Protein backbone atom coordinates (compact mmCIF):
# COMPACT_ATOMS: atom_id res chain seq x y z
CA UNK A 1 0.00 0.00 0.00
CA UNK A 2 1.32 3.47 -0.94
CA UNK A 3 4.68 1.94 -1.72
CA UNK A 4 5.08 0.37 1.70
CA UNK A 5 5.84 -3.28 2.23
CA UNK A 6 3.30 -5.52 3.91
CA UNK A 7 4.58 -5.11 7.43
CA UNK A 8 4.78 -1.33 7.22
CA UNK A 9 1.36 -1.12 5.57
CA UNK A 10 -0.06 -3.08 8.49
CA UNK A 11 1.62 -0.76 10.95
CA UNK A 12 0.40 2.33 9.12
CA UNK A 13 -3.17 0.98 8.92
CA UNK A 14 -3.09 0.23 12.62
CA UNK A 15 -2.01 3.79 13.42
CA UNK A 16 -4.69 5.18 11.10
CA UNK A 17 -7.38 3.12 12.85
CA UNK A 18 -6.16 4.05 16.30
CA UNK A 19 -6.10 7.77 15.56
CA UNK A 20 -9.46 7.72 13.79
CA UNK A 21 -11.14 5.88 16.63
CA UNK A 22 -9.22 7.64 19.40
CA UNK A 23 -12.28 9.55 20.69
CA UNK A 24 -13.86 6.13 21.42
CA UNK A 25 -10.75 4.26 22.52
CA UNK A 26 -9.54 6.93 24.89
CA UNK A 27 -12.92 7.23 26.61
CA UNK A 28 -13.45 3.70 27.88
CA UNK A 29 -15.07 4.73 31.16
CA UNK A 30 -18.63 6.04 31.41
CA UNK A 31 -19.19 9.67 32.29
CA UNK A 32 -19.49 10.34 36.01
CA UNK A 33 -18.05 7.00 37.02
CA UNK A 34 -15.21 6.60 39.47
CA UNK A 35 -12.76 5.88 36.65
CA UNK A 36 -13.85 8.68 34.32
CA UNK A 37 -10.86 10.72 35.39
CA UNK A 38 -8.65 8.29 33.50
CA UNK A 39 -10.39 9.11 30.26
CA UNK A 40 -8.18 10.89 27.78
CA UNK A 41 -10.73 11.38 25.04
CA UNK A 42 -11.12 15.10 25.31
CA UNK A 43 -10.02 17.34 22.42
CA UNK A 44 -7.29 19.30 24.17
CA UNK A 45 -5.37 16.22 25.27
CA UNK A 46 -5.90 14.29 22.06
CA UNK A 47 -4.59 17.25 20.06
CA UNK A 48 -1.50 17.25 22.23
CA UNK A 49 -0.96 13.54 21.58
CA UNK A 50 -0.86 14.28 17.87
CA UNK A 51 1.22 17.47 18.07
CA UNK A 52 3.87 16.08 20.37
CA UNK A 53 3.77 12.86 18.38
CA UNK A 54 4.82 14.85 15.31
CA UNK A 55 7.51 16.64 17.31
CA UNK A 56 8.92 13.33 18.56
CA UNK A 57 8.70 11.60 15.16
CA UNK A 58 10.79 14.40 13.72
CA UNK A 59 13.27 14.37 16.58
CA UNK A 60 13.63 10.64 16.10
CA UNK A 61 14.67 11.13 12.47
CA UNK A 62 17.65 13.06 13.79
CA UNK A 63 18.46 11.31 17.06
CA UNK A 64 17.15 7.82 16.35
CA UNK A 65 18.78 7.52 12.95
CA UNK A 66 21.92 9.65 13.01
CA UNK A 67 22.58 9.54 16.77
CA UNK A 68 23.08 13.30 17.04
CA UNK A 69 21.54 14.29 20.39
CA UNK A 70 20.11 17.78 20.06
CA UNK A 71 19.18 19.62 23.22
CA UNK A 72 17.73 22.57 21.38
CA UNK A 73 14.85 21.35 19.27
CA UNK A 74 12.26 23.30 21.23
CA UNK A 75 13.70 26.43 19.60
CA UNK A 76 12.38 25.27 16.22
CA UNK A 77 8.99 24.54 17.68
CA UNK A 78 8.94 28.00 19.25
CA UNK A 79 10.04 29.76 16.08
CA UNK A 80 7.38 27.83 14.16
CA UNK A 81 4.75 28.97 16.65
CA UNK A 82 5.70 32.63 16.30
CA UNK A 83 5.66 32.37 12.51
CA UNK A 84 2.23 30.75 12.66
CA UNK A 85 0.72 33.44 14.88
CA UNK A 86 2.15 36.15 12.64
CA UNK A 87 0.50 34.59 9.59
CA UNK A 88 -2.80 34.58 11.45
CA UNK A 89 -2.27 38.20 12.45
CA UNK A 90 -1.25 39.45 9.03
CA UNK A 91 -2.95 37.16 6.53
CA UNK A 92 -5.89 35.10 7.65
CA UNK A 93 -7.07 32.91 10.49
CA UNK A 94 -7.21 29.99 8.09
CA UNK A 95 -4.69 27.61 9.62
CA UNK A 96 -3.19 26.35 6.34
CA UNK A 97 -0.92 29.34 5.58
CA UNK A 98 0.03 29.50 9.25
CA UNK A 99 1.13 25.88 9.33
CA UNK A 100 3.01 26.12 6.04
CA UNK A 101 4.80 29.26 7.22
CA UNK A 102 5.73 27.56 10.51
CA UNK A 103 7.37 24.71 8.64
CA UNK A 104 9.27 27.00 6.28
CA UNK A 105 10.57 29.36 8.96
CA UNK A 106 11.55 26.52 11.29
CA UNK A 107 13.25 24.78 8.37
CA UNK A 108 15.32 27.85 7.52
CA UNK A 109 16.25 28.43 11.15
CA UNK A 110 17.27 24.81 11.61
CA UNK A 111 19.36 25.02 8.44
CA UNK A 112 21.40 27.84 9.99
CA UNK A 113 21.67 26.21 13.44
CA UNK A 114 22.38 22.79 11.97
CA UNK A 115 25.00 24.08 9.54
CA UNK A 116 26.98 25.54 12.44
CA UNK A 117 26.30 22.89 15.11
CA UNK A 118 27.11 19.93 12.88
CA UNK A 119 30.67 21.08 12.55
CA UNK A 120 31.10 19.29 15.88
CA UNK A 121 29.80 15.96 17.13
CA UNK A 122 29.12 14.15 20.38
CA UNK A 123 28.66 16.24 23.50
CA UNK A 124 29.94 19.34 21.72
CA UNK A 125 27.07 19.12 19.27
CA UNK A 126 24.61 18.81 22.16
CA UNK A 127 26.05 21.88 23.88
CA UNK A 128 26.02 23.91 20.65
CA UNK A 129 22.34 23.17 20.02
CA UNK A 130 21.59 23.91 23.66
CA UNK A 131 23.43 27.22 23.40
CA UNK A 132 21.49 28.22 20.29
CA UNK A 133 18.16 27.32 21.87
CA UNK A 134 18.94 29.20 25.07
CA UNK A 135 19.99 32.20 23.03
CA UNK A 136 16.74 32.14 21.09
CA UNK A 137 14.84 31.87 24.34
CA UNK A 138 16.69 34.78 25.95
CA UNK A 139 16.31 36.96 22.86
CA UNK A 140 12.61 36.17 22.52
CA UNK A 141 12.15 37.41 26.06
CA UNK A 142 14.21 40.56 25.69
CA UNK A 143 15.32 42.21 22.48
CA UNK A 144 12.89 40.56 20.12
CA UNK A 145 9.87 41.70 22.11
CA UNK A 146 8.47 43.64 19.10
CA UNK A 147 8.20 40.30 17.28
CA UNK A 148 7.51 37.97 20.19
CA UNK A 149 5.64 40.24 22.60
CA UNK A 150 8.00 39.14 25.38
CA UNK A 151 6.62 37.60 28.53
CA UNK A 152 2.98 38.10 27.61
CA UNK A 153 3.34 35.98 24.53
CA UNK A 154 2.18 36.66 21.02
CA UNK A 155 -1.55 36.48 20.42
CA UNK A 156 -4.23 37.65 18.03
CA UNK A 157 -5.88 41.00 18.56
CA UNK A 158 -8.79 42.95 17.15
CA UNK A 159 -6.50 45.40 15.36
CA UNK A 160 -4.60 42.83 13.29
CA UNK A 161 -4.74 43.61 9.57
CA UNK A 162 -5.51 40.05 8.31
CA UNK A 163 -5.46 41.24 4.70
CA UNK A 164 -7.03 38.06 3.32
CA UNK A 165 -9.55 37.74 6.12
CA UNK A 166 -11.30 39.96 8.59
CA UNK A 167 -9.84 41.86 11.54
CA UNK A 168 -12.85 41.19 13.67
CA UNK A 169 -16.15 39.45 13.35
CA UNK A 170 -19.49 41.25 13.11
CA UNK A 171 -20.03 40.99 16.84
CA UNK A 172 -16.62 42.53 17.51
CA UNK A 173 -14.62 39.48 18.55
CA UNK A 174 -11.44 37.91 17.18
CA UNK A 175 -12.24 35.41 14.42
CA UNK A 176 -11.61 31.77 15.32
CA UNK A 177 -8.88 29.67 13.73
CA UNK A 178 -10.39 27.56 10.98
CA UNK A 179 -9.65 25.22 8.11
CA UNK A 180 -11.55 26.68 5.16
CA UNK A 181 -14.48 27.52 7.36
CA UNK A 182 -14.34 24.55 9.74
CA UNK A 183 -13.49 26.03 13.10
CA UNK A 184 -10.81 24.19 15.02
CA UNK A 185 -12.81 24.32 18.25
CA UNK A 186 -15.92 22.83 16.60
CA UNK A 187 -16.84 19.57 18.19
CA UNK A 188 -19.48 16.96 17.64
CA UNK A 189 -20.64 15.29 20.81
CA UNK A 190 -22.15 11.86 20.84
CA UNK A 191 -23.84 10.46 23.93
CA UNK A 192 -24.19 6.69 24.02
CA UNK A 193 -25.58 5.27 27.21
CA UNK A 194 -23.40 6.57 29.99
CA UNK A 195 -20.60 7.47 27.60
CA UNK A 196 -19.90 10.82 26.01
CA UNK A 197 -17.66 10.95 22.95
CA UNK A 198 -16.28 14.16 21.52
CA UNK A 199 -15.22 14.48 17.89
CA UNK A 200 -13.23 17.64 17.51
CA UNK A 201 -12.35 19.28 14.19
CA UNK A 202 -8.97 20.44 15.48
CA UNK A 203 -8.09 16.93 16.61
CA UNK A 204 -8.89 15.41 13.25
CA UNK A 205 -6.85 18.02 11.41
CA UNK A 206 -3.91 17.33 13.75
CA UNK A 207 -4.46 13.60 13.29
CA UNK A 208 -4.36 13.83 9.49
CA UNK A 209 -1.20 15.93 9.62
CA UNK A 210 0.33 13.45 12.07
CA UNK A 211 -0.53 10.52 9.78
CA UNK A 212 1.09 12.26 6.82
CA UNK A 213 4.17 12.97 8.95
CA UNK A 214 4.25 9.37 10.08
CA UNK A 215 3.96 8.12 6.52
CA UNK A 216 6.85 10.33 5.41
CA UNK A 217 8.90 9.05 8.36
CA UNK A 218 8.29 5.43 7.29
CA UNK A 219 9.38 6.24 3.76
CA UNK A 220 12.55 7.92 5.04
CA UNK A 221 13.32 4.96 7.33
CA UNK A 222 12.96 2.49 4.47
CA UNK A 223 14.87 4.49 1.84
CA UNK A 224 18.56 4.22 1.01
CA UNK A 225 18.75 7.73 2.43
CA UNK A 226 17.51 6.42 5.79
CA UNK A 227 20.06 3.63 5.64
CA UNK A 228 22.78 6.24 5.17
CA UNK A 229 21.52 8.11 8.22
CA UNK A 230 21.86 4.95 10.30
CA UNK A 231 25.34 4.54 8.85
CA UNK A 232 26.15 8.05 10.15
CA UNK A 233 25.26 6.84 13.64
CA UNK A 234 27.16 3.59 13.30
CA UNK A 235 30.53 4.63 11.85
CA UNK A 236 31.23 8.00 10.26
CA UNK A 237 34.83 7.11 9.51
CA UNK A 238 33.87 4.07 7.45
CA UNK A 239 31.28 6.18 5.70
CA UNK A 240 33.74 8.75 4.46
CA UNK A 241 36.21 6.05 3.36
CA UNK A 242 33.30 4.50 1.50
CA UNK A 243 32.90 7.61 -0.62
CA UNK A 244 30.01 9.20 1.25
CA UNK A 245 29.95 12.77 2.46
CA UNK A 246 28.52 12.53 5.97
CA UNK A 247 27.89 16.23 6.65
CA UNK A 248 25.03 16.82 4.17
CA UNK A 249 23.32 13.61 5.35
CA UNK A 250 23.37 14.76 8.96
CA UNK A 251 22.36 18.28 7.98
CA UNK A 252 19.40 17.05 5.92
CA UNK A 253 18.22 14.95 8.86
CA UNK A 254 18.64 17.97 11.13
CA UNK A 255 16.59 20.22 8.85
CA UNK A 256 13.88 17.59 8.39
CA UNK A 257 13.55 17.20 12.14
CA UNK A 258 13.56 20.99 12.52
CA UNK A 259 10.70 21.21 10.02
CA UNK A 260 8.77 18.56 11.94
CA UNK A 261 9.26 20.65 15.09
CA UNK A 262 8.03 23.72 13.21
CA UNK A 263 5.02 21.76 12.00
CA UNK A 264 4.22 20.83 15.60
CA UNK A 265 4.58 24.49 16.58
CA UNK A 266 2.29 25.55 13.75
CA UNK A 267 -0.35 23.03 14.78
CA UNK A 268 -0.18 24.25 18.38
CA UNK A 269 -0.95 27.72 17.09
CA UNK A 270 -3.75 26.39 14.91
CA UNK A 271 -5.40 24.82 17.97
CA UNK A 272 -4.76 27.81 20.20
CA UNK A 273 -3.44 30.99 18.51
CA UNK A 274 -0.84 31.86 21.11
CA UNK A 275 2.94 31.63 21.21
CA UNK A 276 5.23 32.18 24.17
CA UNK A 277 8.97 32.05 24.71
CA UNK A 278 8.71 29.34 27.38
CA UNK A 279 8.09 26.88 24.54
CA UNK A 280 11.75 27.35 23.61
CA UNK A 281 13.20 26.83 27.08
CA UNK A 282 15.67 23.97 27.27
CA UNK A 283 13.40 21.86 29.48
CA UNK A 284 10.99 21.76 26.54
CA UNK A 285 13.83 20.41 24.42
CA UNK A 286 14.54 17.90 27.18
CA UNK A 287 10.92 16.82 27.07
CA UNK A 288 11.06 15.73 23.44
CA UNK A 289 14.26 13.83 24.21
CA UNK A 290 12.41 12.06 27.03
CA UNK A 291 9.50 11.21 24.75
CA UNK A 292 11.70 9.73 22.07
CA UNK A 293 13.86 7.70 24.46
CA UNK A 294 10.90 6.55 26.53
CA UNK A 295 9.08 5.26 23.46
CA UNK A 296 12.18 3.89 21.79
CA UNK A 297 14.67 5.89 19.73
CA UNK A 298 15.22 4.60 16.23
CA UNK A 299 11.86 2.83 16.06
CA UNK A 300 8.93 4.06 13.99
CA UNK A 301 6.17 3.76 16.54
CA UNK A 302 8.23 4.56 19.65
CA UNK A 303 8.18 8.35 19.51
CA UNK A 304 4.38 8.45 19.15
CA UNK A 305 3.97 6.05 22.07
CA UNK A 306 6.46 8.00 24.16
CA UNK A 307 4.84 11.35 23.40
CA UNK A 308 1.35 10.05 24.15
CA UNK A 309 2.46 8.31 27.34
CA UNK A 310 4.14 11.41 28.74
CA UNK A 311 1.29 13.72 27.80
CA UNK A 312 -1.24 11.27 29.24
CA UNK A 313 0.52 10.88 32.55
CA UNK A 314 1.19 14.60 32.74
CA UNK A 315 -2.55 15.21 32.53
CA UNK A 316 -3.88 12.32 34.52
CA UNK A 317 -1.23 12.06 37.25
CA UNK A 318 -1.29 15.74 37.92
CA UNK A 319 -5.06 15.62 38.42
CA UNK A 320 -5.01 12.92 41.08
CA UNK A 321 -4.93 14.36 44.58
CA UNK A 322 -5.09 12.98 48.13
CA UNK A 323 -8.89 12.99 48.22
CA UNK A 324 -8.96 10.79 45.14
CA UNK A 325 -6.39 8.49 46.69
CA UNK A 326 -8.36 8.19 49.92
CA UNK A 327 -11.32 7.27 47.76
CA UNK A 328 -9.38 4.43 46.13
CA UNK A 329 -8.01 3.00 49.32
CA UNK A 330 -11.17 3.49 51.38
CA UNK A 331 -11.42 -0.29 51.78
CA UNK A 332 -8.32 -0.26 53.98
CA UNK A 333 -8.31 0.41 57.72
CA UNK A 334 -7.76 4.09 58.48
CA UNK A 335 -4.15 3.92 59.64
CA UNK A 336 -2.99 1.80 56.72
CA UNK A 337 -4.95 3.98 54.34
CA UNK A 338 -3.19 7.13 55.53
CA UNK A 339 0.13 5.36 55.29
CA UNK A 340 -0.42 4.21 51.70
CA UNK A 341 -1.68 7.63 50.66
CA UNK A 342 1.33 9.28 52.29
CA UNK A 343 3.65 7.02 50.32
CA UNK A 344 1.98 7.62 46.99
CA UNK A 345 1.47 11.33 47.63
CA UNK A 346 4.88 12.60 46.39
CA UNK A 347 4.41 10.87 43.05
CA UNK A 348 1.10 12.37 42.05
CA UNK A 349 -0.40 15.78 41.55
CA UNK A 350 2.34 18.38 41.41
CA UNK A 351 4.90 15.65 42.03
CA UNK A 352 4.29 13.88 38.75
CA UNK A 353 7.63 15.05 37.42
CA UNK A 354 9.20 12.80 40.03
CA UNK A 355 7.35 9.85 38.54
CA UNK A 356 8.46 10.94 35.10
CA UNK A 357 12.09 11.21 36.18
CA UNK A 358 12.03 7.78 37.80
CA UNK A 359 10.25 6.20 34.85
CA UNK A 360 12.79 7.71 32.52
CA UNK A 361 15.75 6.51 34.57
CA UNK A 362 14.35 2.99 34.75
CA UNK A 363 13.87 2.94 30.99
CA UNK A 364 17.40 4.16 30.26
CA UNK A 365 18.89 1.66 32.73
CA UNK A 366 16.87 -1.44 31.96
CA UNK A 367 15.27 -0.82 28.57
CA UNK A 368 17.68 1.20 26.44
CA UNK A 369 15.40 0.49 23.50
CA UNK A 370 12.47 2.18 25.26
CA UNK A 371 8.91 0.95 25.60
CA UNK A 372 9.10 -0.54 22.09
CA UNK A 373 11.86 -2.86 23.27
CA UNK A 374 9.67 -3.80 26.23
CA UNK A 375 6.76 -4.57 23.90
CA UNK A 376 8.99 -6.63 21.62
CA UNK A 377 10.40 -8.58 24.57
CA UNK A 378 6.91 -9.31 25.81
CA UNK A 379 5.86 -10.40 22.34
CA UNK A 380 8.80 -12.76 22.07
CA UNK A 381 8.17 -14.06 25.57
CA UNK A 382 4.50 -14.72 24.86
CA UNK A 383 5.33 -16.10 21.44
CA UNK A 384 7.64 -18.62 23.06
CA UNK A 385 5.08 -19.60 25.64
CA UNK A 386 2.33 -20.06 23.07
CA UNK A 387 4.28 -21.55 20.20
CA UNK A 388 6.63 -23.60 22.27
CA UNK A 389 9.75 -24.08 20.21
CA UNK A 390 8.18 -23.07 16.94
CA UNK A 391 10.56 -20.32 15.91
CA UNK A 392 13.59 -18.47 17.08
CA UNK A 393 13.00 -14.92 18.30
CA UNK A 394 13.58 -12.50 15.49
CA UNK A 395 16.73 -10.55 16.04
CA UNK A 396 15.62 -7.86 13.67
CA UNK A 397 17.45 -4.56 14.10
CA UNK A 398 15.85 -1.92 16.27
CA UNK A 399 14.27 -0.29 13.23
CA UNK A 400 11.97 -3.20 12.50
CA UNK A 401 8.79 -1.58 13.76
Amino acid at each position, binding site marked *: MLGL*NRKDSGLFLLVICLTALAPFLLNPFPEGSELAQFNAGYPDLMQRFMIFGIFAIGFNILFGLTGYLSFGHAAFLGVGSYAGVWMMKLLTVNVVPAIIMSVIVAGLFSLVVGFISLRRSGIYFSILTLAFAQMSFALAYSVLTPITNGETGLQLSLNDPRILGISQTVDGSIPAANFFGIEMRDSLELAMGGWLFTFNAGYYLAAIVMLISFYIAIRIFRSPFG*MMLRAVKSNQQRMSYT*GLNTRPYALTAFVISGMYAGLAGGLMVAMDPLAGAERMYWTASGEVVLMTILGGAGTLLGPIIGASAIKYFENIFSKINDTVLHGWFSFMPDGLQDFVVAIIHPFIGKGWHLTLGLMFMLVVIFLPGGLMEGINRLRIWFGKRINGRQQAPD*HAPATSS
Partner: protein
Amino acid sequence: MSILEVNNVNKNFGGLKALNNVNLQVEAGTVHAIIGPNGAGKSTLLNCFVGRLEPDTGSVTFDGESLLGIKPFQINQLGVSRVFQTPEIFGALTLIENVMIPAFAKRDGAFHMEPWRSVGSEAGLHEQAMEMLSDVGLDAKADELAGQLSRGDKRRLELAMCLVQDPKLLLLDEPTAGMSRGDTNNTIDLMKRIAQRGVTMVVIEHDMHVVFSLAEKISVLAQGTVIVEDVPEKIKGDPRVQDAYLGGAHL
Protein backbone atom coordinates in the same frame (compact mmCIF):
# COMPACT_ATOMS: atom_id res chain seq x y z
CA MET B 1 51.72 2.13 -16.75
CA SER B 2 51.71 3.14 -13.11
CA ILE B 3 48.34 3.92 -11.58
CA LEU B 4 49.66 5.33 -8.28
CA GLU B 5 52.67 7.62 -8.22
CA VAL B 6 54.27 8.87 -5.06
CA ASN B 7 56.99 11.47 -5.50
CA ASN B 8 59.32 12.83 -2.82
CA VAL B 9 56.79 12.59 -0.01
CA ASN B 10 57.94 13.95 3.35
CA LYS B 11 56.05 13.93 6.60
CA ASN B 12 57.24 15.17 9.98
CA PHE B 13 55.61 14.61 13.35
CA GLY B 14 57.16 17.18 15.62
CA GLY B 15 60.86 16.44 15.24
CA LEU B 16 60.35 12.90 13.98
CA LYS B 17 60.80 12.31 10.27
CA ALA B 18 58.11 9.71 9.62
CA LEU B 19 58.48 9.79 5.84
CA ASN B 20 61.67 10.89 4.16
CA ASN B 21 61.55 11.46 0.39
CA VAL B 22 59.43 8.44 -0.35
CA ASN B 23 59.07 7.51 -4.01
CA LEU B 24 56.81 4.74 -5.16
CA GLN B 25 55.24 3.60 -8.42
CA VAL B 26 52.45 1.07 -8.41
CA GLU B 27 51.79 -0.59 -11.74
CA ALA B 28 48.16 -1.00 -12.77
CA GLY B 29 46.84 -4.53 -12.28
CA THR B 30 49.60 -5.67 -9.95
CA VAL B 31 49.85 -6.56 -6.29
CA HIS B 32 52.38 -4.31 -4.64
CA ALA B 33 53.49 -5.08 -1.09
CA ILE B 34 55.05 -2.63 1.32
CA ILE B 35 57.05 -4.27 4.06
CA GLY B 36 59.38 -3.01 6.71
CA PRO B 37 60.06 -3.13 10.43
CA ASN B 38 57.71 -1.58 12.97
CA GLY B 39 57.71 2.19 12.92
CA ALA B 40 59.10 2.31 9.37
CA GLY B 41 56.23 4.58 8.29
CA LYS B 42 54.08 2.06 6.38
CA SER B 43 50.75 3.10 7.88
CA THR B 44 51.71 6.77 7.68
CA LEU B 45 52.32 6.32 3.97
CA LEU B 46 48.97 4.60 3.49
CA ASN B 47 47.25 7.39 5.41
CA CYS B 48 48.72 9.87 2.95
CA PHE B 49 46.99 8.02 0.09
CA VAL B 50 43.48 8.22 1.52
CA GLY B 51 43.39 11.79 2.83
CA ARG B 52 43.78 10.96 6.47
CA LEU B 53 47.16 12.66 6.58
CA GLU B 54 48.51 15.43 4.42
CA PRO B 55 52.22 15.11 3.49
CA ASP B 56 54.39 18.13 4.24
CA THR B 57 55.88 18.09 0.77
CA GLY B 58 55.74 15.89 -2.32
CA SER B 59 52.93 14.61 -4.50
CA VAL B 60 50.60 11.63 -4.63
CA THR B 61 48.83 11.07 -7.94
CA PHE B 62 46.30 8.43 -8.74
CA ASP B 63 45.28 7.83 -12.34
CA GLY B 64 46.61 11.26 -13.23
CA GLU B 65 44.79 13.09 -10.44
CA SER B 66 46.35 14.45 -7.27
CA LEU B 67 45.09 12.87 -4.04
CA LEU B 68 46.33 15.73 -1.90
CA GLY B 69 44.01 18.41 -0.54
CA ILE B 70 40.84 16.42 -1.11
CA LYS B 71 38.66 14.64 1.42
CA PRO B 72 38.59 10.85 2.03
CA PHE B 73 35.18 10.47 0.41
CA GLN B 74 36.38 12.23 -2.73
CA ILE B 75 39.40 9.93 -2.92
CA ASN B 76 37.11 6.92 -2.64
CA GLN B 77 34.91 8.32 -5.39
CA LEU B 78 38.00 8.33 -7.64
CA GLY B 79 38.20 4.56 -7.17
CA VAL B 80 40.41 4.01 -4.10
CA SER B 81 39.08 1.71 -1.37
CA ARG B 82 40.78 0.90 1.89
CA VAL B 83 40.70 -2.00 4.36
CA PHE B 84 41.80 -0.92 7.82
CA GLN B 85 44.07 -2.66 10.27
CA THR B 86 41.21 -2.91 12.77
CA PRO B 87 38.05 -3.56 10.74
CA GLU B 88 35.91 -0.47 10.19
CA ILE B 89 32.35 -1.62 9.54
CA PHE B 90 28.81 -0.47 10.37
CA GLY B 91 28.36 -2.52 13.54
CA ALA B 92 24.73 -1.56 14.12
CA LEU B 93 23.65 -2.52 10.61
CA THR B 94 23.13 -5.93 9.03
CA LEU B 95 25.76 -7.47 6.79
CA ILE B 96 23.71 -6.99 3.66
CA GLU B 97 23.20 -3.31 4.54
CA ASN B 98 26.92 -2.99 5.15
CA VAL B 99 27.60 -4.11 1.61
CA MET B 100 24.72 -2.20 0.01
CA ILE B 101 25.90 1.14 1.39
CA PRO B 102 29.17 1.18 -0.57
CA ALA B 103 27.26 -0.02 -3.62
CA PHE B 104 24.91 2.95 -3.29
CA ALA B 105 27.89 5.25 -2.81
CA LYS B 106 29.42 3.96 -6.01
CA ARG B 107 26.19 4.30 -8.01
CA ASP B 108 24.65 7.48 -6.56
CA GLY B 109 27.69 9.48 -5.49
CA ALA B 110 28.77 11.12 -2.26
CA PHE B 111 25.37 12.54 -1.37
CA HIS B 112 22.07 11.43 -2.74
CA MET B 113 18.60 11.88 -1.39
CA GLU B 114 15.50 10.19 -2.69
CA PRO B 115 13.54 9.45 0.45
CA TRP B 116 10.57 8.18 -1.57
CA ARG B 117 12.56 5.27 -3.00
CA SER B 118 12.68 2.19 -0.82
CA VAL B 119 15.63 -0.10 -0.24
CA GLY B 120 13.31 -3.02 -0.99
CA SER B 121 12.90 -1.89 -4.59
CA GLU B 122 16.66 -2.08 -5.26
CA ALA B 123 16.65 -5.72 -6.36
CA GLY B 124 19.67 -5.43 -8.66
CA LEU B 125 21.84 -3.83 -6.06
CA HIS B 126 20.70 -6.28 -3.42
CA GLU B 127 21.65 -9.18 -5.64
CA GLN B 128 25.06 -7.69 -6.34
CA ALA B 129 25.65 -7.26 -2.59
CA MET B 130 24.54 -10.84 -1.91
CA GLU B 131 26.96 -12.14 -4.54
CA MET B 132 29.75 -10.22 -2.92
CA LEU B 133 28.84 -11.65 0.49
CA SER B 134 28.88 -15.19 -0.87
CA ASP B 135 32.27 -14.44 -2.48
CA VAL B 136 33.70 -13.88 0.99
CA GLY B 137 31.61 -16.69 2.47
CA LEU B 138 29.28 -14.61 4.59
CA ASP B 139 26.02 -14.96 2.64
CA ALA B 140 24.48 -17.18 5.32
CA LYS B 141 24.80 -14.36 7.84
CA ALA B 142 23.41 -11.63 5.57
CA ASP B 143 20.71 -10.54 8.02
CA GLU B 144 22.80 -10.58 11.17
CA LEU B 145 24.18 -7.46 12.76
CA ALA B 146 27.75 -6.84 11.67
CA GLY B 147 28.86 -5.87 15.17
CA GLN B 148 28.34 -9.44 16.36
CA LEU B 149 30.75 -10.99 13.87
CA SER B 150 34.10 -12.47 14.84
CA ARG B 151 37.16 -10.39 14.03
CA GLY B 152 38.07 -12.51 11.04
CA ASP B 153 34.52 -12.28 9.66
CA LYS B 154 34.53 -8.51 10.14
CA ARG B 155 37.67 -8.30 8.07
CA ARG B 156 36.12 -10.35 5.28
CA LEU B 157 33.01 -8.20 5.44
CA GLU B 158 35.13 -5.08 5.11
CA LEU B 159 36.81 -6.62 2.10
CA ALA B 160 33.41 -7.31 0.55
CA MET B 161 32.41 -3.70 1.23
CA CYS B 162 35.45 -2.50 -0.68
CA LEU B 163 35.10 -5.01 -3.52
CA VAL B 164 31.47 -4.24 -4.21
CA GLN B 165 32.62 -0.81 -5.33
CA ASP B 166 34.79 -2.44 -7.96
CA PRO B 167 37.75 -0.22 -7.00
CA LYS B 168 40.63 0.59 -9.29
CA LEU B 169 42.98 0.53 -6.34
CA LEU B 170 42.56 -1.48 -3.16
CA LEU B 171 44.67 -0.60 -0.11
CA LEU B 172 45.03 -3.29 2.54
CA ASP B 173 46.57 -2.62 5.95
CA GLU B 174 47.73 -5.96 7.41
CA PRO B 175 44.77 -7.97 6.11
CA THR B 176 45.78 -11.15 7.96
CA ALA B 177 46.90 -9.67 11.29
CA GLY B 178 45.65 -11.82 14.14
CA MET B 179 44.27 -14.55 11.90
CA SER B 180 44.81 -18.27 12.30
CA ARG B 181 46.84 -20.16 9.68
CA GLY B 182 43.68 -21.53 8.09
CA ASP B 183 42.00 -18.12 7.90
CA THR B 184 45.19 -16.61 6.54
CA ASN B 185 45.29 -19.16 3.72
CA ASN B 186 41.62 -18.51 2.92
CA THR B 187 42.36 -14.79 2.77
CA ILE B 188 45.33 -15.38 0.48
CA ASP B 189 43.09 -17.39 -1.87
CA LEU B 190 40.47 -14.65 -1.78
CA MET B 191 43.02 -11.98 -2.57
CA LYS B 192 44.42 -14.04 -5.41
CA ARG B 193 40.94 -14.22 -6.92
CA ILE B 194 40.60 -10.45 -6.53
CA ALA B 195 43.97 -9.94 -8.20
CA GLN B 196 42.86 -12.09 -11.12
CA ARG B 197 40.03 -9.65 -11.79
CA GLY B 198 42.68 -7.04 -12.44
CA VAL B 199 42.27 -4.98 -9.28
CA THR B 200 45.44 -3.14 -8.36
CA MET B 201 46.37 -3.78 -4.74
CA VAL B 202 48.75 -2.20 -2.28
CA VAL B 203 49.28 -4.45 0.72
CA ILE B 204 51.02 -3.67 3.98
CA GLU B 205 51.91 -6.94 5.64
CA HIS B 206 54.18 -8.42 8.28
CA ASP B 207 53.56 -12.06 7.42
CA MET B 208 56.21 -12.92 4.81
CA HIS B 209 54.28 -16.01 3.78
CA VAL B 210 51.41 -13.78 2.68
CA VAL B 211 53.72 -11.28 1.03
CA PHE B 212 55.62 -13.82 -1.02
CA SER B 213 52.52 -15.73 -2.13
CA LEU B 214 50.79 -12.58 -3.39
CA ALA B 215 53.10 -9.74 -4.29
CA GLU B 216 54.48 -9.11 -7.72
CA LYS B 217 56.58 -6.27 -6.46
CA ILE B 218 57.82 -5.37 -2.99
CA SER B 219 58.96 -2.06 -1.54
CA VAL B 220 60.92 -2.19 1.67
CA LEU B 221 60.44 0.82 3.92
CA ALA B 222 62.86 1.57 6.73
CA GLN B 223 63.05 4.71 8.82
CA GLY B 224 60.73 6.54 6.46
CA THR B 225 62.60 5.77 3.27
CA VAL B 226 62.18 3.16 0.54
CA ILE B 227 65.47 1.31 0.70
CA VAL B 228 64.76 -1.38 -1.89
CA GLU B 229 62.07 -1.93 -4.49
CA ASP B 230 62.15 -5.15 -6.46
CA VAL B 231 60.46 -8.44 -7.36
CA PRO B 232 60.03 -10.94 -4.49
CA GLU B 233 62.80 -13.31 -5.58
CA LYS B 234 65.41 -10.59 -5.39
CA ILE B 235 64.11 -9.14 -2.12
CA LYS B 236 64.58 -12.45 -0.31
CA GLY B 237 68.32 -12.43 -0.61
CA ASP B 238 68.97 -8.71 -0.40
CA PRO B 239 71.35 -7.91 2.45
CA ARG B 240 69.96 -4.40 2.83
CA VAL B 241 66.56 -5.86 3.72
CA GLN B 242 68.03 -8.13 6.35
CA ASP B 243 69.93 -5.14 7.60
CA ALA B 244 66.79 -3.11 8.00
CA TYR B 245 64.95 -5.85 9.85
CA LEU B 246 67.75 -7.02 12.08
CA GLY B 247 69.42 -3.69 12.69
CA GLY B 248 72.82 -4.57 11.30
CA ALA B 249 73.28 -7.99 12.88
CA HIS B 250 74.27 -10.06 9.86
CA LEU B 251 73.21 -13.65 9.93
